[in-house]
């Protein structure tokens, strides 16, 4: 059996990598992907911790997270596309003015 702390370690490591990616990379698509990494880390934590008490609930929570992540990705990518049409760039450092 694998101790619960190992799964939580994995979740923390994935989350850290996600935060690092969000902090360092300036390409907004890669920043978006780091957010997805963080959400996955949360899912792993949910299912791992729920395993000892109510495993079904952990799966249900993870399902909700996946559904919300899907809707967030749809809207976020549409925003990135719309922004690209205006500014011709996806670099987050170059999108700093409110006027088009």
């Amino acid at each position: 059996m694998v101790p619960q702390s190992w799964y939580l370690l994995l979740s923390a490591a994935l989350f850290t990598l996600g935060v690092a990616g969000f902090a360092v990379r300036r390409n907004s698509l890669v920043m978006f992907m780091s957010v997805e990494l963080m959400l996955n880390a949360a899912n792993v934590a949910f299912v791992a911790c729920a395993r000892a008490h109510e495993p079904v609930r952990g799966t249900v929570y993870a399902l909700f997270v996946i559904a919300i992540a899907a809707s967030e990705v749809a809207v976020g990518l549409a925003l990135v596309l719309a922004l690209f049409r205006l500014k011709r760039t996806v670099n987050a450092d170059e999108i700093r003015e409110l006027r088009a």
Partner: protein
Amino acid sequence: MDERTGFLLFSAIALVGALNVVLRRNPVHAVLWLVGSFLGVAGIFLTLGSGLLAAIQVMVYAGAIMVLFLFVVLLLNLETPRFEGISLARGASLFAAAATGLLLLWPFVSDRSLQAPAAPAVDLPVTAANVGMTLFQRFAVPFEIVSLVLLVAMVGAIHLARRPRRDEPA
């Protein structure tokens, strides 16, 4: 394979994939490494006993969301940037990220009570039937709300990504 081997293998895949997402400069490569990482996470869900969630992770996350990412990256046809060094502000935020990570990791390494193997659950096993019943009975309201969120997201995405027609203002 037993749980320990499975965990080590899949967590290695997930972590290597995640690391490459952060490090690869070419966005297409980053997308593909993230797909690999998600497949690793699906394996982790399998070792945790939830085959349903593993299949859903592959189907939705790796199979649909990442395809969306790949489409956008391919259509935008971005070029691979050169590595120009990390500025002071970015270095500081990276340091903050590492510090957050250590703060998250430390309790799990030091706490003795979490080191013991998790006791097997006495509650319902995770089958599609049980998950379905819990979802539609106990979590019926959140389920409906999530369906509304998906609808709103769909409408919003279609509207945002539309090219304005000639007779409309931009």
